[in-house]
């Protein structure tokens, strides 16, 4: 018996197969993982992401604190509601967690961090915050859902008070707003348009039921994983962890090197790695043969060396197997993967594989 979100009873009522995820009892699927995947690509699906941790940071020096804590630079967040994806690094430049930070006002920022890393994240943040007199408060008694897909915002907007609806539908990507008791953000983890909505736990089931009644498909962790893999979005603990720098996990774009004078945790180690021509590269793989690529399979780049698949699986959109992998430095365009002793051919492809319902790689 694990922790349960405010929507647990709704999942059971919808026929979910429940699995443990980081200590939480979460829905894996409600019948067909593939159909849930396609619902998000083609229409709209809703995920319970209430297990994720919401942390409010308050204090006069909160912006200064976050510019030190995070590898990305919250100086980019200048209008209220604006969000930023960032890695939080340790002193060695390894990834403690990846997170989204929201600018609420000049003395209040909000972080949404992973569920499985909750305790170490909170401990780390609190340890660093004291020098900046920043208060760290976990937001409890909330539920969070991700409504994702081309029709997601339209269908979900019916749940938003008319007073806020127009503003909510006008939110630019990676921006959030408070709409009565809902916090709505145009973010997600699927490669589709949509909202993530934080709400009081007490009426989460009503919102969930209304979304389902309006034609939004309930989706489990299974579809969430195949969708994020197609979108080439990293999964913490799988694609990166404390032993891996963001440079070796396809997250180089999230590091704000400028201004050079900004000191952030892990910066010195990261700069050294960035100058290393032998740094491993993080790539997308498309399986040319039949079969399915899986996590931890060995990748051989002939004449160069070996790497490993960090996330592999079947892509329901492409109907082929795809993977994310860490490989030796180089410009190679093909490799081989050891699948149960057979060497299968893969093509190294640019990511994402799929975005906004469209296949983005050459087949």
């Amino acid at each position, binding site marked *: 018996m694990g922790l349960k979100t405010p929507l647990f009873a709704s999942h059971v009522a919808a026929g979910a197969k429940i699995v443990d995820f980081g200590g939480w009892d979460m829905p*894996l*699927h409600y019948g*067909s*993982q*593939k159909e849930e995947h396609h619902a998000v690509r083609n229409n709209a699906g809703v995920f319970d992401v209430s297990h994720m941790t919401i942390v409010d940071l308050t204090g006069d020096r909160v912006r200064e604190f976050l510019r030190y804590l995070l590898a990305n630079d919250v100086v980019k967040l200048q209008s209220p509601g604006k969000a930023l994806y960032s890695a939080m690094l340790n002193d060695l430049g390894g990834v403690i967690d990846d997170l989204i930070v929201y600018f609420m006002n000049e003395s209040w920022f909000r972080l949404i961090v992973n569920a499985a890393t909750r305790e170490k994240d909170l401990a780390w943040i609190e340890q660093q915050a004291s020098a900046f007199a920043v208060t760290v408060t976990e937001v409890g008694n909330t539920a969070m859902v991700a409504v994702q897909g081309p029709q997601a915002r339209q269908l979900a907007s019916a749940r938003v008070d008319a007073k806020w609806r127009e503003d909510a539908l006008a939110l630019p990507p990676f921006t959030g707003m408070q709409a009565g008791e809902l916090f709505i953000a145009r973010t997600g983890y699927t490669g589709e348009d949509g909202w993530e909505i934080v709400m009081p736990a007490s009426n989460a089931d009503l919102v969930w039921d209304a979304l389902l009644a309006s034609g939004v498909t309930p989706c489990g962790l*299974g579809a969430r994983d*195949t969708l994020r893999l197609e979108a080439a979005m990293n999964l913490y603990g799988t694609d990166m962890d404390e032993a891996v720098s963001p440079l070796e996990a396809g997250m180089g774009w999230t590091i704000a090197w400028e201004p050079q004078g900004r000191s952030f945790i892990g910066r010195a180690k990261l700069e050294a790695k960035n100058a290393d021509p032998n740094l491993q590269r993080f790539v997308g793989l498309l399986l040319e043969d*039949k*079969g*399915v690529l*899986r996590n931890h399979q060995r990748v051989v780049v002939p004449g160069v060396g070996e790497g490993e698949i960090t996330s592999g*699986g*079947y892509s*329901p959109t492409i109907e082929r*197997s795809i993977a994310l992998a860490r490989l030796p430095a180089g410009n190679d365009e093909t490799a081989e993967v050891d699948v*149960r002793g057979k060497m299968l051919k893969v093509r190294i492809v640019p990511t994402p594989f799929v975005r906004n319902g469209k296949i983005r790689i050459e087949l």
Partner: protein
Amino acid sequence: MTELPGDLLYTEDHEWLRREDDGSVTIGITDHAQAALGDLVYVELPEVGLELDSGGDMAVVESVKAASDVFSPIAGIVEAVNEDLADDPEIINGDPYGNGWIVRLRPSEKIDEDALLSPNAYQDLLDAEDA
């Protein structure tokens, strides 16, 4: 839970066997197994003519979630494989006891029925797993 076909034998690994009139044995995975695996996306089939020991690697069924080995419940030679599964592995999800058969073997020794489960014994196993 739907009723188990009464004319099949079963294994603890959730496979079924049908003894055909010509002496061959058709093998697949049970409805319980396909439901636990979820949507199948790939089936790795053995070569026709391959000689299998009882308990040997016979096939691999891969769902969106994971890969699972299918072991041969008896010793035999692969006489036919279900080629339709190469393009449409979800046949197993839709019709596990019929069109979703996986391999047909020619037994290489007398089948030890005591090592297999009757429909009633397999139903008891499922009931015990649910409990």
